[in-house]
């Protein structure tokens, strides 16, 4: 069976005013449909760069990138935009909600992106379904200023899921949230994998990483399986994932 995503020997060197710095030195990664993968690494190790390459924000210097078996290593900007719209969902550390729009309009933003056209009725139905999926359909008409951090991040997750992507890319989505709220958001995203959506989670948090099916560490530009080096006592509390329904119940 063809893997959802396959990176083979991806390299990336950042060239700035200072000396060129190799961020990725031949990283390999395979993600199957419905699989969740966590990527850990210290700050500056290249986690976000890797995610931006996977999300087609940037191009690798070398290596091969296959999506569903199709080589998309060198894709034009126009085709990359179309793929971002159709295949990927993005969740960022900061929620990036547009403050002048309601929660529903923020979610619908991913549907009004010039990639095809959807009727207002269909847009509304898809938006409400996505908000319902993350448990905040009742907050559809609220503007971001009236939402808590966790609610805002769940709106962002709904925005990422509204086009029913094949791969969800999350760059430290709980970085701005407290532990409990962070857990809720992680569970909301993990629940999406039950419907066949792949998930790549970039995080510093072992507890959240442990909720993924695989945990990788990015070190010296290479991806390798990670082992939890924390004392056992610290890992007990996060061993079992919280069901999404329970996690979102407090908001209803």
């Amino acid at each position, binding site marked *: 069976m063809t893997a959802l995503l396959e990176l083979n020997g991806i390299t990336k060197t950042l060239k700035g005013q200072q000396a060129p710095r190799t961020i990725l030195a031949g990283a390999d990664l395979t993600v199957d449909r419905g699989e969740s993968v966590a990527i850990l690494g210290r700050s500056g190790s290249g986690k976000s760069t890797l995610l931006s390459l996977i999300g087609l924000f940037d191009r690798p210097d070398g290596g091969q990138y296959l999506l569903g078996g199709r080589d998309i290593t060198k894709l034009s900007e126009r085709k990359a935009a179309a793929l971002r719209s159709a295949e990927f969902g*993005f969740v960022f550390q*900061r929620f990036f909600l547009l403050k*002048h729009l309601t929660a529903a309009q923020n979610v619908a933003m991913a549907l009004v992106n010039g990639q095809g056209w959807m009727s207002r009725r269909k847009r509304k139905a898809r938006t409400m379904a996505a908000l319902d999926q993350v448990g905040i359909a009742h907050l559809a008409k609220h503007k971001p200023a009236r939402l808590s951090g966790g609610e805002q991040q769940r709106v962002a997750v709904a925005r990422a899921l509204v086009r029913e992507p094949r791969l969800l890319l999350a760059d430290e989505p709980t970085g701005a949230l407290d532990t409990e709220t962070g857990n809720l958001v992680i569970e909301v995203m993990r629940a999406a994998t039950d419907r066949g959506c792949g998930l790549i989670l970039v995080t510093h948090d072992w507890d959240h990483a442990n909720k993924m099916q695989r945990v990788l560490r990015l070190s010296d530009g290479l991806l390798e399986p990670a082992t939890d080096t924390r004392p056992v006592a610290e890992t007990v509390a996060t061993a079992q994932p919280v069901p999404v329904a329970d996690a979102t119940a407090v908001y209803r």
Partner: protein
Amino acid sequence: MIRLSGRFRSALIIGGQGIRARKTRTLLSMVSLFLGVLAVVVVQVGAETAKSARLADLELHAGKDGTRQMYLQGTADSVRISQETLKGRPDAIAVTSLQAIIGEPNVTPINPGGAPFDQPGGYGMSYNMSCDQSGNCYPVPMNGQDQAQVPGAAIEMSLSALTGDIRQFRPFRSVAGNWLDFSTEPSLSPGLVVNLEAAKGFSRNRVPAEMRINGTTANPTPRILGVVDDGNSQPVAYGRADELGYWLPAPTGNMNYGPGLQIMMAPTALDVEQLLRVRLIASGIPADQLHAETIQARKEIAKELALMRWIFLGMASLVLLIGVAGILNVGLATVGERVEEFALRRAVGTPRSLLAGIVLAETLLTGLFTAAAAIGLSAAALTAISTLFGDREQFLADLVFPWQAGVAGVVAGLVAGVLGGLIPAIRAARIPIATVMRA
């Protein structure tokens, strides 16, 4: 097509959201642009109004666009042949000009020479006007014996004998009464329609209804049928050539019809022109003296007004440019504030071109709103001016908002929108998508 339509609709929706989110800023952009667009609209309104007024004036004096006209020396033959050939023709007329004095016999008219009544003394003595075949007219002193020595209640005017309705070529404005009726049998009492200047003379002076025409042996009693505005500053009366013909002696070889003979023909009356030309040449008039020309009033006006219009449009463009600078400034500041939004939109699949389109849509909508406001204000102001001051000047009463000004306003708004939005749009499209990753 669907893809384009989707992008266009997306740009409008997102642009509309952007405008709603920044109402004050949009208003400020509109204010900076408003004067520029208003200037363009006002210049266009002024130019079109001036053009209409000038055209109407020119049509009154010279004739409608496309009219073929021919000036002939008013000899007995040319007058007789022209009147015979054109009699009863709906598409061509002959205008024979004479001098006439209405009032007491054997007195010097109040306006010797048919001068305007507000110019005391006029030409100082009676003149006949003589015109050559090119239409150039000049005064010819009347025979000294014909000049009356005693001032009296009489009015001198130019008398135009018509073979048909001249209004199809020169659209006189009816002021009072009726126009000449060419469908009835000619009357022995010639019906006259006078122009405003002649009417002024009759309203100021009580004169008996006796008309003297050079060369006549008896004086007819004219009937004043109506008053028209023919744009002429000198007193003129119009009458039927057949009615006046009862009183004029049969044209003889040495008779001179004052200012001469004018032929006016519709552009389609080529057969008449041909026939008239053949008959005139057959009567002995040299072919090279028969010059027909086409009236090109619009062309003349266009030349006349073009320079002025461009000068004013240039000034208006400068004002518009200031408005564009304003909208550009606001646009750049807005893009700077929305870096994350645009990067995020790219992250969710919005193409660069659509991002540029969103910014352009916002400035274009701002430009269009501004244009609508400027056009609305101009139209309202024009209506108010026409209502308030229409009774003072005829052209003010006729003021109508010209569609060309509306088009110019919309174009100015769109151009300003494009110019003001282009650089911000390019900047928005170039925002690196990784901005959201680094935030």
